[in-house]
């Protein structure tokens, strides 16, 4: 039996905030989204206070702080670096790892034969990551990715447990699946679970017992694969090289509501510039750019969600070309008379995924000149990395716009000036 493990960092962003702040141990911590809009991470103490994921900060601010809760703006420089450290340590422990997200990785446990060895490995791994990086993790070990996810999910809910759970023996798997609603299974969302419930499939065990043909016909090959994975049949392999991104989104809430197109324009330009940088970072070019603008779902004002896409005649990674597309898209989706709260830019249809010939039936907008100069972009990117800021004319200079991040912790691990101090 080949085994694999899912290593999942506990409340990752909140745990990161604690690594260099030992005084915050056992204190409730929440981390806010960009511009301090809503809660995107909670320590277990904050969860125990009843703080829900995604709740707008302004709604809980007063009572949360009054109860002694701590709050941080998101500090992705810190989270990204600590994530790299965790992954680096894990890479040293096994031959093959798939970094699945910023706080999760699948490990190939080929070298481990028995479940008791696997359990010991899990404990060892957890202790090492805890000591070397300072981040608590929990580990689910099982023959398939889907079961490993379930094992880690159960490990999370066991208060005071070791944080390591093996689902290697059939009677353990059966018992775990009987107690698990189908909704909790990886890849089964709310919709699917409702449809499954209608067929009297309520628990993971029910799903595992279902006929694979029936599931494939009634649902999809994907769900059939889930059933097989629940039975311990490995359908999803560990992917050493994670797939490159298929789209890049940069979106933010505004500090205050904006009605005026000319005030939104420079902000959207900023998102476009940031998205273009990310695109070049990935070594990609895109054929489509979209703009979204939203009014606030809170409050009683009229609601509107605008969205418009522009197709480029050829793949683009030049910020100037993307800015031109973004401005056209914004003009098309902006409507007068609304108070906008949020906007975003989406780059998609990366050249790697599409044939890059010009279209035969060229319905594309020929009036749009698409500038593309790779050398110029490399030059500008390298300058901007060195803190010399080059702006595009339609942008709002960042130091004026500066995202309000009043509660950001220091960049302990990536900036000399922010090193933690010891007495």
């Amino acid at each position, binding site marked *: 039996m080949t085994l694999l493990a899912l290593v999942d960092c506990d409340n990752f962003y909140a745990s990161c905030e604690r690594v260099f702040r*030992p*005084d*915050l*141990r056992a204190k409730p911590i929440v981390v806010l989204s960009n511009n301090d809009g809503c809660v995107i991470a909670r320590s277990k103490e904050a969860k125990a206070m009843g703080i829900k994921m995604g709740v707008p900060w302004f709604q809980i601010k007063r009572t949360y702080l009054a109860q002694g809760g701590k709050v941080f703006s998101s500090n992705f420089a810190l989270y990204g670096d600590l994530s790299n450290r965790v992954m680096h340590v894990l890479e040293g422990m096994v031959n093959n790892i798939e970094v699945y997200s910023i706080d999760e990785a699948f490990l190939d446990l080929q070298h481990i034969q028995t479940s008791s060895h696997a359990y010991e490995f899990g404990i060892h791994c957890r202790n090492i990551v805890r*000591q*070397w*990086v*300072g981040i608590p993790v929990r580990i689910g070990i099982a023959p398939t990715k889907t079961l490993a996810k379930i094992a880690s999910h159960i490990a999370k809910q066991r208060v005071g447990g070791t944080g390591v759970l093996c689902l290697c023996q059939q009677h353990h798997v059966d018992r775990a699946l009987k107690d698990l609603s189908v909704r909790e299974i990886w890849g089964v969302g709310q919709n699917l679970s409702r449809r499954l419930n209608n067929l009297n499939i309520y628990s993971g065990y029910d799903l595992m017992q279902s006929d694979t043909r029936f599931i494939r016909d009634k649902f999809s090959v994907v769900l059939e694969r889930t059933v097989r994975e629940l039975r311990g049949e490995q359908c999803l392999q560990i992917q050493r090289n994670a797939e490159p991104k298929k789209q890049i989104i940069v979106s933010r809430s505004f500090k205050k509501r904006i009605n005026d197109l000319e005030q939104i324009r420079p902000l959207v330009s900023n998102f476009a510039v940031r998205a273009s940088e990310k695109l070049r970072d990935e070594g990609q070019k895109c054929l489509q750019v979209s703009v979204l603008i939203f009014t606030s779902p809170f409050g009683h004002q009229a609601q509107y969600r605008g969205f418009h896409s522009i197709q480029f005649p050829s793949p683009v990674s030049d910020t100037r070309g993307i800015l031109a597309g973004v401005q056209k898209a914004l003009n098309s989706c902006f409507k007068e008379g609304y108070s906008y709260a949020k906007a975003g830019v989406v780059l998609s249809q990366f050249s790697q995924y599409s044939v890059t010939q010009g279209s035969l039936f060229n319905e594309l907008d020929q009036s749009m000149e698409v500038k593309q100069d790779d050398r110029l972009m490399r030059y500008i990117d390298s300058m901007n990395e060195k803190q010399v800021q080059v702006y595009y004319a339609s942008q709002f200079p960042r130091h004026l716009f500066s995202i309000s991040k009043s509660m950001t912790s220091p960049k302990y691990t990536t900036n000399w000036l922010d*090193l*933690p*101090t*010891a*007495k």
Partner: protein
Amino acid sequence: MVNANIGDQAILIVDRSIKPKHGSIVVASLDGEFVCKRLQLKPRLCLLPENPAYKPIYVQHGQDLDIMGTVTAAINKFE
């Protein structure tokens, strides 16, 4: 930590993967604060300041001590 040749404002290199031994210079968190001390394990657990101006800290039951890592080098600042 002057007696261990670590001056004020020195930059410490801390290796979290080295298991601290009796006599190691360590960075530890004690009651929610980072401290740099020499670790004494015998005859009883104690954090030595290596500085005549400070007293050794005998860690009591109920005190929150976590050794973060072993100091492997220090860069002293002269100005």
